């Protein structure tokens, strides 16, 4: 191949990758624009603070916002310690035994299981067996299971990317393994772990199917007061509105999507803030 041809190929490849990148961003842009155009007229204080209603102009998303918020808190309270713990075990203590390889493969597979399957599991175990009913805790634990593989996989990756010199230096000073993990490996891996948190919150907050199975209600006129209270969530409300006959509800659901996106971005920005901070302190 001549030099010119090789340069041309290089150029083509570069353009192709740029094109793919830009087209996916363009699609996202079109989607967001469409949603904003249709939904912005609905988003105001009244929409955020009102209860669900059969009349589109009176309908609001208040209980759904709180439902989703509590749901995410429960999900993370369950999934974060469990997921990080499992990742530490697999990465630091698991070794290369057959069992740990078996667990390894299964965790990777779990990440690909359709979310509705988690819904069925949640219904059987949390709702019926544990008797939690159609409650915040049932929904939160179900979503927690759903994002667990994501947290385990990203945390493992983060732990693995910690330079070997750091734990070795600690060992050299006589630290025990748990001390190395807690005071050196984990703090160093924290930005990577927080990326996992961002990914899992983003996934969990938009899930509809498992929540419908677990029994999130479409009409709830109160904010949950305990973990055992019934709840509704943003995606449920959006789904409910899009399936209505009246067209005005379809554009109302666009308003709901805007709120959903904002809640997600707000929750993620907390994680992004901490990631930024830990990254800086690590480098500084």
């Amino acid at each position, binding site marked *: 191949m001549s030099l010119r041809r090789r340069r041309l190929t290089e150029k083509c490849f570069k353009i192709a990758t740029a094109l793919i990148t830009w087209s996916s961003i363009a699609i996202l842009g079109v989607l967001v624009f469409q949603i904003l155009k249709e939904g912005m007229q609905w988003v105001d204080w009244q929409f955020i603070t009102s209860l669900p209603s*059969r009349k589109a102009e009176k309908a609001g998303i208040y209980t759904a916002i709180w439902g989703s918020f509590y749901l995410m808190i429960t999900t993370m309270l369950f999934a974060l310690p469990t997921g990080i713990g499992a990742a530490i075990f697999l990465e630091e203590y698991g070794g290369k035994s057959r069992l740990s390889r078996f667990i390894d493969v299964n965790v990777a597979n779990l990440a690909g299981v359709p979310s509705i399957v988690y819904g069925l599991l949640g219904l059987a175990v949390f709702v019926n067996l544990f008797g939690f009913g*159609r409650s915040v805790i049932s929904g939160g634990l179900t979503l927690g299971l759903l994002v667990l593989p994501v947290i385990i996989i990203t945390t493992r990756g983060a732990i693995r990317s910690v330079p070997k010199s750091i734990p070795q230096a600690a060992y050299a000073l006589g630290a025990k393994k748990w001390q190395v993990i807690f005071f050196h490996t984990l703090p160093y891996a924290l930005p990577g772990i927080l990326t996992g948190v961002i990914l899992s919150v983003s996934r969990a907050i938009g899930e509809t199917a498992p929540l*419908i199975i677990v029994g999130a209600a479409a009409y709830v006129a109160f904010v949950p007061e305990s973990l055992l209270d*019934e709840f509704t969530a943003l995606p449920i409300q959006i789904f409910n509105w*899009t399936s209505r006959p009246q067209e005005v509800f379809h554009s109302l659901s666009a308003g709901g999507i805007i709120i959903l996106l904002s809640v997600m971005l707000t929750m993620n920005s907390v994680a992004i803030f901490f990631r930024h901070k830990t990254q800086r302190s690590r480098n500084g």
Partner: protein
Amino acid sequence: MKFSKSLFTLFLISAILLVIAPYDASAKTLRGKVSIDGSSTVFPITEAIAEEFRSVAPRVKVIVGVSGTGGGFKKFLAGSIDINNASRRIKSKEVKKAKKQNIDFLEIPVAFDGITVVINKANDWAKEITPAELKKIWNTNSKVVTWKDVRSSWPDKKIKLYGPGTDSGTFDYFTKAINGKSRASRSNYTMSEDDNVLVAGVSGDKYALGYFGFAYYLENKTKINALPIKSKNGSITPSMESINLGTYVPLSRPIFIYARKDAFKKPEVKKFIQFYLEEAGGLVKDVGYVPLPKADYEESLEKIKSL
């Protein structure tokens, strides 16, 4: 004389109190939960009632889910909800299960829903259709490919069929009413659980024919046409009047709520159902369904009084 007059006044006051007290004063202070689940078809009605109920009994928490008629009955029979929204009658299998679990229930019709057969606005040949022709189209092993196969005067163009998916109560009812057997249907047509998808499909295709709930036709009258059904009553277009009068046959059906009888012991549930039946006449129309004749609501009210 004086004595009896004051006695009479006392009697009058206590009588008034007796009438008013359980009605208004208690409803305002009622607490508790009313747990409801079931059909997405009935949901808009129950939601409207729940919304209005808030002004009567602000402290009662009404929760309405949408897990489908069948899914709702499962929860109903497991005893985890008080009321199930149902777009079809309870099946004998479910009745058996209820007996086994010792669950005594009450079936309360709350509205009519008419299944509407719809065609494209540009369709200028089909003016009516008979149930027999519908059966020819929709039955299992249907040989119908073109409009001409249905009626020889219709064009020799491929007929594009749209209908609800098999989880829907509308599917159950339509197949029973048209094909004679519930859930017996041809399967090579465009299915969707989301009726809005069906509306979009039929409105974009000149040779389309589909069926779905009346409320969806009512909201989309400008995009699609309803095909009148020819029966012994003549050629009848689905409308509030024809469905209410019962002339739109065989495609109008009552939809129900099912309530556990022991749930009536909870005053908030009893009050809610009472309110449902009192207000349904107006609210049902609001959300695009056809109210029952007044007498039917009164009959149900009478039934629950003693519970």
